[in-house]
């Protein structure tokens, strides 16, 4: 099976073969919800409705049909599993003998001249940089004899501190992706670099006399100092040329807000470490944007409650659509998108930032609960002035952002928790406003003023440009169109030339991170597909450096800037991955103050739009947002990201039109049915996903899907760009949604691997009823009053309640603890595990059958009302039970206990009975139903971690606690004759986690952090009443509610 092309999946045929699942009836769901007790957990609306599909997932190891014969067989001629077995039983005996084949002879190919530092069998780590939307994150790339296999965060880099987000982890797969463009394309045929330089060069020489009239360059957001200098030189030489920028998911409103507030384009960054009270206004600040990894780390450190630290910050989230940030909120208030902005206005009034305050503050609010909350939040912010933080994300309207800047300034937060610095991005001479820049470009193209358009760095305007600009038509009036990118895409199709780009792991370069820190990018491997960097193209075309490499250009740029001994400074910068010693890399606070009247002007503008909103009750606002996994769509071809369940919907391989339950009922929208969205006469069809906790009057559709030309991602999901115009980039008020009645099949993992939760009454012997608490919660106040309340709730069977003899672990005893209090659900751990452990992707059709292979999953639970639930995240790896139920049922002892307490899985012994996964109460075992690992594409072999076996079809697998890392650490300690240094050994999930929510180590050794966590009164085990004695335990989720609002939450 071609795992990288799962879009070939047979979803349509599949849906036809199985009985169509019943439509979800929200009325029934509400009915059932009323019967539930206060904080019972539920997993999804199907769970509440008790649909047969959910019961299947709950009570069975895999859903029905999951173990059917491969669909190729069932589909073509209706051969059932039984018939298939009959047909193959005769050949089975012979097939069995294939296990006795001789190992093929292998060659050893040593180097001719062995490079320095390379020791075969041991990886090297190189500091380099990955960019997302132009902004840098410093990373360490693991290289096995010249092939990068894994990305880790760079502990020295301020945007990483050792952690990564999902995009960093996925970068290695994009690097090797065989669908990347592999040759220069000229008018649909393979071209050569020489011919390209000849043609473009000749055109440029002709235009040089005119000062470069007609030359246009289009890029995304650029923070690279080297490219900035190149572009500056270029525009000096070609004064009439223009450089345009278009970053579809960039900070368009943030720039406008800064311009309005400060009169200059300033960058805003936060220090969550200094904030005691945070108010997030429709903002997923913790898991989105260039600073997210750092923000998560800083924020988590203010929330780490332990028995010796009973302090934590407080987070309020007022949001229209549930976010990862909202899942951690102590108080979460769902409000329709326009009302969140009104909340900002009301807050500004209440704090006296703009007029209209005093006793009347809050009058602008429509929602009764918001009215009650406003004075309490305002008072809390005031009480913590200087250590408070109000954030609205870059998608909020400029007016809202101006008000938020003003609020922070009035509270004295500016300079303490909020910093405004000079812009990190390079701003072209024709202004920072990228929408305006695109408008100019299109106007120039339409007027025939553009002769040469160079689109660099993978910009894809034919897919991403605002729909009202008519970019496609305008582009065709350009004489010479050049596209440079990793993939052939919608845009390259309309270009004369397509130049394959070098991946960032193949490139020399530099970039700035959210705080301005410059880090260098160095290649880990020669370009696999003869890609070129944008720096190279600019140097060759505009600087007449025909044979320039990006190495020389970058080095030459820094030669003049690095102080002291250049060679030493350059080497240090390359080694560290960042340039720390020279002035002006990390940007100092600009010390800018708000322009007088800016806040008042923003408030007046908002009052005007507010009146409009109030005149249209029931108006729907459609939010367009970058997808949490594929961003603006440029990452859509990456299968790891496609198959990574999106934090809120748990959808894979699709985006969806999410609506809240109340609005779904009002507009007669049915879960997983198609609907049509109309805005200003523009129409888009998308399937509906009813998302608990999403506010009434708000719908959301993420960007990045419905790609028309993106290889395996072509046609996945629904394209939202046709709705996106220059008038409204993010929030589309007055959208109309109409149900269409057709079914759509979503592959969501939210019901997969469901555990019997507190929602179920489980009868035990003696008619005892027992409630299983999967997520334990409490408040800080409870904890202060009664530190052991979690311990007293626990039901831990005595060690002798087993027939098996007790085992004593004398040496190491590996264990893990996961702090639910700080887990944001960002899913970095899942993808880090996937990269580390050679976990394959299976495709949408297999996910529908519950066959996804992730060893660690992030379960998302709700409790309470479906319009306003509390949301919890729970990462679930293998529990490595001491009394492991899987071990005792394996007929071939393929899973057995190690003397350090690991529940080992031996692939070469496994015969695939699947008894073990049947018997696993945590449902953490994964079975290779088909040959999911792609062994036929040679380039993908380079991606595999050589320390982990690539599994075959018919083999069970599961989390190993990264046993390859454990063994390596043990071997190193033995060779060097010293103990393993405490806390130095990390699992892949732990290393990637931005919030340090996962710790791993030797629970026999008190020096390890994990031992301290496990001794904490918050520690509990999942389903520990089953006496499995899990080695993975959890720290309960503690919230810090404001006593003044506590009544609001009742049972929460």
């Amino acid at each position, binding site marked *: 099976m071609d795992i990288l092309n799962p879009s070939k999946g047979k979803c349509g045929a599949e849906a036809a073969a199985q009985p169509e699942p019943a439509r979800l009836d929200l009325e029934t769901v509400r009915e059932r919800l009323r019967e539930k007790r206060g904080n019972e957990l539920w997993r999804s609306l199907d769970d509440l409705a008790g649909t047969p599909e959910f019961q299947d997932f709950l009570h069975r190891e895999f859903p029905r049909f999951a173990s059917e014969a491969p669909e190729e067989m069932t589909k073509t001629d209706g051969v059932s599993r039984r018939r298939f077995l009959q047909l193959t039983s005769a050949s089975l005996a012979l097939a069995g003998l294939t296990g*006795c084949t*001789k*190992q093929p*002879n*292998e*060659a*050893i*190919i*040593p*180097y*001719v*001249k*062995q490079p320095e530092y390379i*020791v*075969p*069998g*041991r990886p090297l780590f190189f500091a380099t940089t990955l960019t997302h939307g132009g902004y840098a994150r410093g990373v360490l790339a693991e290289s096995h004899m010249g092939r990068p296999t894994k990305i880790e965060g760079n502990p020295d880099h301020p945007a990483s501190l050792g952690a990564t987000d999902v995009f960093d982890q996925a970068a290695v797969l994009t690097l090797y992706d065989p669908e990347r463009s592999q040759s220069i394309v000229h008018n649909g045929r393979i071209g050569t670099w020489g011919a390209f330089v000849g043609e473009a060069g000749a055109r440029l020489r002709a235009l040089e006399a005119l000062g470069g009239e007609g030359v246009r360059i289009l890029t995304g957001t650029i923070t690279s100092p080297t490219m900035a200098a190149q572009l500056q030189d270029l525009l000096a030489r070609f004064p009439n040329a223009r450089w345009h920028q278009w970053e579809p998911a960039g900070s368009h409103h943030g720039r406008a807000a800064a311009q309005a507030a400060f009169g200059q384009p300033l960058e805003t960054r936060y220090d969550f470490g200094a904030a005691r009270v945070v108010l997030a206004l429709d903002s997923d600040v913790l898991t989105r944007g260039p600073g997210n990894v750092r923000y998560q780390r800083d924020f988590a450190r203010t929330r780490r409650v332990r028995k010796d630290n009973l302090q934590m910050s407080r987070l309020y989230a007022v949001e229209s659509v549930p976010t990862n940030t909202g899942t951690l909120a102590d108080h979460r208030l769902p409000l329709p998108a326009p009302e969140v902005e009104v909340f900002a206005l009301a807050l500004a009034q209440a704090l006296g930032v703009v007029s209209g305050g005093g006793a009347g503050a809050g009058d602008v609010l429509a929602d009764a609960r918001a009215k009650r909350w406003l004075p309490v939040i305002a008072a809390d912010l005031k009480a913590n002035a200087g250590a408070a933080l109000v954030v609205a994300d870059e998608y909020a309207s400029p007016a809202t952002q101006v008000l938020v800047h003003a609020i922070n300034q009035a509270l004295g937060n500016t300079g303490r928790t909020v910093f405004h610095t000079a812009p990190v991005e390079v701003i072209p001479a024709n202004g920072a406003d990228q929408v305006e820049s695109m408008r100019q470009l299109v106007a120039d193209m339409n007027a025939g003023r553009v002769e040469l358009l160079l689109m660099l760095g993978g910009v894809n305007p034919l897919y991403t440009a605002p729909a009202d600009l008519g970019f496609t038509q305008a582009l065709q009036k350009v004489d010479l169109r050049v596209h440079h990118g990793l993939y052939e895409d919608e845009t390259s199709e309309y270009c004369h030339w397509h130049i394959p780009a070098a991946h960032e792991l193949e490139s020399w370069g530099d970039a700035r991170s959210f705080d301005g820190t410059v880090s260098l990018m160095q290649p880990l491997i020669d370009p696999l597909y003869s890609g070129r960097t944008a720096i190279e193209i600019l140097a060759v075309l505009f600087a007449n450096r025909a044979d320039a490499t990006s190495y020389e250009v970058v080095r030459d740029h820094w030669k003049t800037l690095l102080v002291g001994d250049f060679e030493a400074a350059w080497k240090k910068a390359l080694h560290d991955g960042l340039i720390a010693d020279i002035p002006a890399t990390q940007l100092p606070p600009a010390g800018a103050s708000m322009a007088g009247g800016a806040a008042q002007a923003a408030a007046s503008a908002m009052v005007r739009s507010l009146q409009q909103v109030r005149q249209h009750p029931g108006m729907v606002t459609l939010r367009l947002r970058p997808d949490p996994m594929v961003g603006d769509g440029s990452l859509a071809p990456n299968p790891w990201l496609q198959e990574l369940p999106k934090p809120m919907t748990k959808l894979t391989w699709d985006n969806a039109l999410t609506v809240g339950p109340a609005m779904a009922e009002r507009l007669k929208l049915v879960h997983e049915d198609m609907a049509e969205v109309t805005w200003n006469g523009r129409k888009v069809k998308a399937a509906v996903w009813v998302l608990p906790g999403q506010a009434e009057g708000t719908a959301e559709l993420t960007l990045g899907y419905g790609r028309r030309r993106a290889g395996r991602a072509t046609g996945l999901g629904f394209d939202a760009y046709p709705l996106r115009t220059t008038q409204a980039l993010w929030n589309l008020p007055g959208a109309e949604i109409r149900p269409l009645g057709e079914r759509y099949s979503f592959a969501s993992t939210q019901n997969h691997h469901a555990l019997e939760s507190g929602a179920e009454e489980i009868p035990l012997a003696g008619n005892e009823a027992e409630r299983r608490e999967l997520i334990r919660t409490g408040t800080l106040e409870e904890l202060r009053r009664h530190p052991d309340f979690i311990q007293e709730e626990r039901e831990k069977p005595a060690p002798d309640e087993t027939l098996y003899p007790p085992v004593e672990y004398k*040496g190491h005893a590996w264990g893990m603890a996961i702090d639910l209090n700080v887990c944001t659900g960002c899913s970095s751990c899942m993808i880090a595990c996937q990269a580390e452990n050679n976990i394959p992707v299976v495709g949408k059709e297999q996910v529908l059958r519950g066959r996804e292979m992730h060893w660690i999953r992030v379960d998302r639970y709700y409790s309470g009302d479906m319009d306003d639930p509390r949301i919890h995240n729970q990462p679930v790896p293998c529990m490595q039970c001491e009394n492991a139920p899987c071990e005792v049922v394996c007929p071939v002892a393929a899973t*057995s*206990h*190690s*003397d*350090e307490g*690991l529940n*080992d*899985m*031996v*692939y*070469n*012994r496994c015969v695939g009975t699947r008894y073990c996964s049947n018997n696993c109460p945590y449902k953490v075992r994964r079975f290779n139903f088909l040959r999911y690992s792609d062994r036929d594409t040679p380039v993908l072999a380079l991606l595999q971690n050589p*320390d*982990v*076996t*690539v599994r075959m079809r018919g083999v069970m697998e599961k989390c*190993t606690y990264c*046993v*390859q890392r*454990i*063994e390596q650490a043990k*071997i190193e300690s*033995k*060779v060097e*004759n010293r103990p393993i240094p405490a806390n130095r050994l990390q699992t892949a999930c732990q290393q990637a986690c931005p919030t340090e929510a996962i710790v791993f180590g030797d629970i026999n050794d008190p020096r390890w952090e994990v031992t301290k966590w496990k001794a904490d009164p918050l520690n509990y085990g999942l389903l520990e009443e089953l006496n499995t004695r899990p080695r993975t335990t959890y720290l309960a989720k503690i919230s810090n509610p404001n006593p003044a609002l506590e009544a609001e939450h009742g049972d929460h």
Partner: protein
Amino acid sequence: MQIFHRSTNTIAKVSIFGAVFFIAFFAWIFSTLLRSSYATGQGIVRNQPIPFSHVHHVAGMGIDCRYCHSSVETSSFAGMPPTETCMNCHRQIWTNADMLEPVRSSFATGVPIQWQRVHDLPDFVYFNHSVHVAKGIGCASCHGQVDRMPLLYQEASLQMEWCLSCHRDPGRFVRPKEEVFNLNWQPPADPQEAQALRAKLVKDYKIQSLTSCSTCHR
């Protein structure tokens, strides 16, 4: 009425009795085949691009194992010498030998020499040289007296039972660390003395009997 002939009783008895032998016979064939050098590669000399002689280089010239297998003390993989290592000597001696033509041409063209792997563990087995060397297991314990092999072959079966025979009783082949690379080291002739030395080394080197699956399978 008698459907079956009387002889059926005998045939049935014989065939049930015979089945035991039949199954045992196949089990024996199977286990013999599995342990045969055909399956294990034990004792088979592979065709190498250059008929490299360990007798000449190790016993004759006295070159230490680590001169060529340089990462044996630091990595899982013992290391194969780059062409450059061969040329360190062979740019001075035997510079015109026909036998060394592949070495010279590799060095000149930059195309590596393709050696045939002699000791090849399955891909699901993760053996680490460095830790065995650090714990006082001599090269010869697994690779045999390489200095007496004109053409290299695999001396041990490299099957799991062979690995486990030592992992279950790690004292059996331990030797002083300084003798690890001495292919001709012999334990003391006196069994009691040898036993005492082993016991001492196992204690000094903190040698454990590691038989958990994940010790080798990951």
